[in-house]
């Protein structure tokens, strides 16, 4: 089976990797080191977790897994808790330490794990709360997506990237993938883009491309960084969330002056991860757009009746089709053996198509909720439960998923409740099951979800404020004692809740919201829980940047 790096020995005379102290490693050396590792892993496919750092050892371990067909997950090396949780949940065969030049493969679980032949890479989608959920990426997913990115960025073996993002982030990993796939080189550094030495290294090794998330660009913007000071740059890419218009235009103008290209990109982990890009020539007039689908992919919009919208300017859910859509989720080790064919990816984003064919995101589909930080598609639950003999409507919010059953048969409640507990790993108390004789509907015959939610979920709260208070009080005490975790929705939720400041926007920082030493501990502890890893300079980072830095978040 062809793998992403099957052919890299043909680049043996090229430089593959340069570390920040200037040592370079050829493809011949990288290949030889990786082959030594594959011998340690053996012939049979193994599940491998890598303690990932932006260093040569991590690259060797990763390439070895790819070459040997061993499914691999990269976890931030400094996040011991996350690794421990993931290892506990998924019981990998090997955990790789990468603190030295040679990766150390340590046996964690000697038992054989059933792994699907196509399974190549695992990416995490949830934060530190709730069950860690992994996206299963196949060899063909990653190959098709890397080739599509190479195609529009026109990456060749003369290009040189720098690890401006951690390799364990899917965006950081895709930079590694595309450059190694074409025989280009990568400069490895763990330095942040706000560090002066990062740019010294960038210039010293004539790096040709820079990739950043919104935080990177906001940080560079705040220090008036000018890409003309890095003349070797050929193009700059941005993904990882929405970057504010003024920052996009600032850098687009700056890069245009020196004939450099600026790509705004959009993706989701479930799409391995790239979905679309904005052609650089469109960035001035359409900086608010996510652009067009990558080669081989197709973007469409669907209305709430699942009918395709062909008119421009009409909003609908953004649906992606392409060879890079994942092979399903894994919630436990048993899921690694299966492959789910997914024809389309419901992005959960509401978008519209402009008359020139570019897509613009304008919001999120309300049929997704995020209890415990895990994205749940209410339609999926409704469709699955509708296979029973009853009419079922499912709605909810980030605290409760309401299942309303139209039936007189009380035994159905227990059977549906049983089905839910078997099908979903969410805590059972998240689900509220109600029985009605007729489910209320709107004039277009669709279920009146808003009314149902108000009647059963919020109505209950209204009727019994005391009960709600006592319930919330108990929950808060458990959270403060560390016996439960607060299911934060977002960084904005943490800030507005703890700082008591509902006016915060995407660009607000802890500092700009007048956070002080009295609220610092509560916010830092909540962020540590929500993000999994607390960035050093978090109090100066915008809400959006922190949100983007969330481990395993879509980008």
């Amino acid at each position, binding site marked *: 089976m062809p793998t992403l790096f099957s052919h890299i020995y043909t680049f043996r005379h090229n430089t593959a990797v340069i570390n920040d102290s200037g040592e370079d490693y050829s493809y011949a050396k990288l290949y030889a080191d990786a082959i030594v590792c594959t011998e340690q892993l053996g012939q049979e496919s193994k599940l491998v977790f890598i303690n990932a750092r932006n260093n040569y050892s991590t690259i060797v371990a990763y390439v070895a897994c790819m070459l040997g067909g061993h499914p691999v997950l990269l976890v931030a090396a400094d996040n011991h808790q996350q690794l421990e949780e993931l290892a506990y949940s998924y019981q990998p065969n090997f955990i790789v330490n990468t603190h030295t030049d040679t990766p150390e493969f340590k046996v964690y679980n000697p038992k054989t794990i059933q792994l699907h032949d196509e399974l190549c890479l695992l990416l995490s989608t949830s934060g530190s709360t709730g069950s860690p959920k992994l996206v299963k990426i196949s060899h063909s997913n990653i190959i098709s997506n890397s080739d599509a990115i190479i195609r529009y960025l026109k990456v060749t073996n003369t290009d040189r990237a720098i690890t401006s993002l951690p390799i364990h982030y899917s965006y950081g990993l895709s930079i590694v993938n595309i450059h190694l796939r074409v025989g280009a080189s990568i400069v490895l550094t763990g330095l942040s883009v706000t560090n002066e030495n990062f740019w010294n290294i960038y210039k010293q090794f004539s790096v040709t491309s820079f990739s950043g998330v919104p935080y990177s660009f906001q940080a560079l913007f705040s220090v008036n960084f000018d890409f003309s000071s890095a003349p070797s740059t050929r193009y700059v890419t941005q993904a990882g969330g929405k970057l504010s218009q003024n920052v996009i235009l600032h850098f687009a103008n700056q890069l245009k002056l020196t004939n450099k290209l600026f790509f705004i990109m959009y993706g989701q982990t479930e799409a391995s991860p790239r979905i679309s890009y904005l052609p650089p020539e469109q960035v001035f007039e359409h900086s608010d757009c996510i652009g067009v689908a990558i080669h081989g992919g197709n973007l469409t919009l669907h209305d709430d009746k699942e009918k395709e919208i062909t008119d421009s300017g009409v909003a609908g859910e953004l649906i992606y089709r392409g060879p890079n859509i994942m092979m399903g989720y894994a919630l436990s080790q048993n899921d690694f053996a299966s492959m789910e064919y997914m024809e389309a990816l419901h992005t959960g984003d509401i978008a519209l198509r402009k008359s020139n064919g570019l897509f613009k995101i304008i919001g999120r589909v309300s049929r997704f909720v995020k209890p415990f930080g895990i994205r749940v598609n209410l339609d999926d639950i409704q469709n699955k439960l509708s296979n029973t003999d009853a009419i079922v409507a499912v709605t909810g919010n980030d605290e409760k998923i309401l299942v309303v059953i139209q039936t007189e048969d009380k035994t159905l409640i227990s059977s549906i409740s049983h089905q839910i507990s078997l099908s979903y790993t969410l805590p059972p108390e998240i689900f509220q099951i109600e029985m009605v004789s007729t489910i209320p509907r709107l004039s277009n015959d669709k279920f009146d979800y808003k009314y149902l939610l108000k009647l059963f979920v919020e109505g209950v*709260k209204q009727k019994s*404020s005391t009960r709600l208070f006592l319930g919330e009080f108990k929950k808060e005490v458990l959270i403060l004692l560390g016996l439960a975790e607060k299911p934060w929705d977002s960084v904005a939720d943490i800030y507005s*809740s703890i700082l008591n400041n509902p006016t915060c926007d995407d660009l607000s920082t802890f500092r700009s919201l007048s956070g*002080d*030493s009295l609220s*610092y501990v509560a916010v830092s502890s909540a962020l*540590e829980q929500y993000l999994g890893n607390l960035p050093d300079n978090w*109090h100066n980072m915008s809400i959006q940047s922190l949100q983007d830095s969330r481990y395993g978040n879509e980008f």
Partner: protein
Amino acid sequence: MSFNYFTSFRTIEVTDFLKALGICLVVLNHSSWHNLEGGLNILILISGLNFARFSLKKDNTELAVDIARLLKKLLIPSLLLMGFYSLLFNKFDWKEILLISNFFYTQKIAAFPVWYVQVITQLMLVIALIAFVFNFAKWTRISLLGFSLVMLFFSILIPPFIDQYLSSAELFWKLPHYIAWNFILGWVVWASIEDENQSPLKLCICWLLIVISAFIVFQLYQEISINRFLIFSSFATVLLLFKKIQVPTIFYRPIVILASAVFYIFLLHGGIMYFIQILMIDHFSYATVAVCKFFISISLCCVLFILVTATLNALKTVRESSSKVSNNS
């Protein structure tokens, strides 16, 4: 998640860790371990560091807003506590209410355990005033380290001059000009560690300043026990060297609670100890009473912090929920 609480670790910021440790030292010191001094100095250092981190580079209006918000958070509970103690002990003093008793009392620091609030309020008001006159933002944006060093220099030199007119020793050194160097040293520490690529030279200079300034104030000016100098210098060195540390998961939550409840503990532990002393002194040994004073006062303050915070958060949820329902209808 059933992973091992002893072998797994969680990351905590050093400032939070030292806050927890600092307040424990304060309570230990008051519980009878009088040799353990310097806890409050660590807390003041961290307050100064956080002030530099969050507010010092802001323009005058924003700085004033930050100071006003901070004072509001400090003063409301302190005044409530003073009201409570006034009723309980049937004593009232306008100097306490005006937060200036530290300039008058020579037999004790303050009538109620709020002297720190008095001093920090006075200090913040002076800082706000100086900031308006000299426009701090202008200088801090040029060089936070340079500005902080100049301020530290003056804050160490000024106290002996003021002492010629107002004897600080008689007032237990609890005057804002004697605390200023400690607070401003926090600015210097922050200026030395704020960059990701910390310069070893900056760190060395900062460490020397910590040691020298602490020595001058504690040993030369105040001539107090060497312990305070040693404890303060070592803790401040830790602050300088580490941004985050790993603690076993089992200790993570107690540390977070202690660090979050610092102000509660500070305000209330004295009162709780007073009652423990009355209830236990005739029945138990001195050591037992001291141990009980420490653990009971810390625990009760943390419990109170948890109950108050949980109540406020739960009330907020109920309020939001009812407004949501009324909006929908």
